[in-house]
């Protein structure tokens, strides 16, 4: 038995750009994000028997990726995180840090608590429903709603500050 049917492997390859996007939202930088995608694929392949053709692959993969981030990559990202100055608008990018190209909105997202960042990633960036996000994170829908509200508020406050400084 191959770990993956031909149809599922095609579907999974097509999903890779979205997995990379979600991973980027969680991990913040490209190398940690792609490590995360690789770990998620390895985990998915090791339990591919849970899947069959026609099963909702995207939600399943987002869940595996999210759990891999919590288990393996999150701590590493935190250790490696480049100090982010309080004044986002005044940041001088360090070309060696790999964060030089982060846009203000990406920087702001990285400053959110993990639990808010993941719901923002799932709902606002990946376009999942509250119910799907709640299943992936394994919390009630009300928890998704309130984390989303707090995360949005914090992002708007941070980005609003940047706008005002530029004005």
């Amino acid at each position: 038995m191959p770990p993956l049917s031909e149809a599922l492997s095609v579907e999974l390859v097509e999903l890779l750009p979205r997995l990379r996007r979600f991973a980027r939202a969680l991990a913040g930088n490209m190398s940690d994000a792609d490590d995360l995608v690789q770990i998620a694929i390895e985990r998915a392949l090791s339990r591919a028997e849970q899947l069959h053709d026609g099963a909702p692959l995207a939600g399943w993969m987002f869940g595996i990726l999210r759990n891999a981030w919590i288990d393996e990559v999150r701590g590493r990202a935190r250790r490696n995180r480049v100090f982010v100055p309080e004044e986002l608008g005044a940041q001088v990018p360090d070309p060696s840090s790999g964060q030089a190209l982060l846009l203000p909105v990406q920087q702001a997202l990285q400053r959110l608590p993990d639990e808010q960042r993941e719901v923002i990633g799932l709902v606002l960036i990946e376009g999942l429903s509250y119910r799907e996000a709640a299943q992936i994170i394994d919390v009630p829908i009300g928890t998704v709603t309130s984390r989303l509200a707090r995360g949005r508020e914090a992002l708007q406050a941070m980005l609003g500050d940047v706008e005002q400084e530029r004005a």
Partner: protein
Amino acid sequence: MNPSDETLMAYADGELDAATRKQVEASMAADPQVARRLAAHQALRSQLHASFDKVLEEPVPPHLIALVRSAAKGSEVGQVLQFPRKQAQRRAWLQWSSLAASFVLGALLWQLASRMYPTAPITESKGALVASGALARALNSRLASQQTASDPVQIGVSFRSRQGAYCRTFQLRDTAATAGLACHGDDDWIVQVAARADASATAHSQYRQAASTLPPMVLEAVQEAIAGDPLDAGAEAQARAAGWRAGH
């Protein structure tokens, strides 16, 4: 009606039922302040998309595609995976890795000793430890399935690293049971780690012998480096035919 912030967010996220949606639209029409609040939510959403959708345009790293495709190709040539109990095995590696620190000293002593004897199976070249002599010959030519127990060099598992290089674990019978991991560089086998094998490791006989006799430090190095599954016999032979060069 003045909709709550949560209701407005749910509206922006398309989560409201038709009746509530109509109420929100009515209050927007009546109160421009409500419309402004909603616009702020929608603006944030498009800012996030404008920023992160660029990832969708980037080329996906080939090793990620290859990882997925390799899992589907397994059946086409009727290959049987050599490690059906991968989960159990990985857990075992993880347990052993906690013991790794005690083997560091042994590895350092081994490295020093190998410098003193240029004919040793591991020599230093341009700052790296390189397999030579009988070890290099075994790494280059021996298939794990073809060796006999009396061979002085025993080859264990072969696999592709996360960087795409071919790597193999080995054990030297006549050098106080030294074991290690080597990965193929441009020309040579670069020894990533080498350590004295711990006799007690053989107690884990429920696992495949090639893995069970490796010291924890080497197992940890394998765990750290490996991408996907170890090579099966067919893939091992193909890699040998390609000269252990990456990109095949």
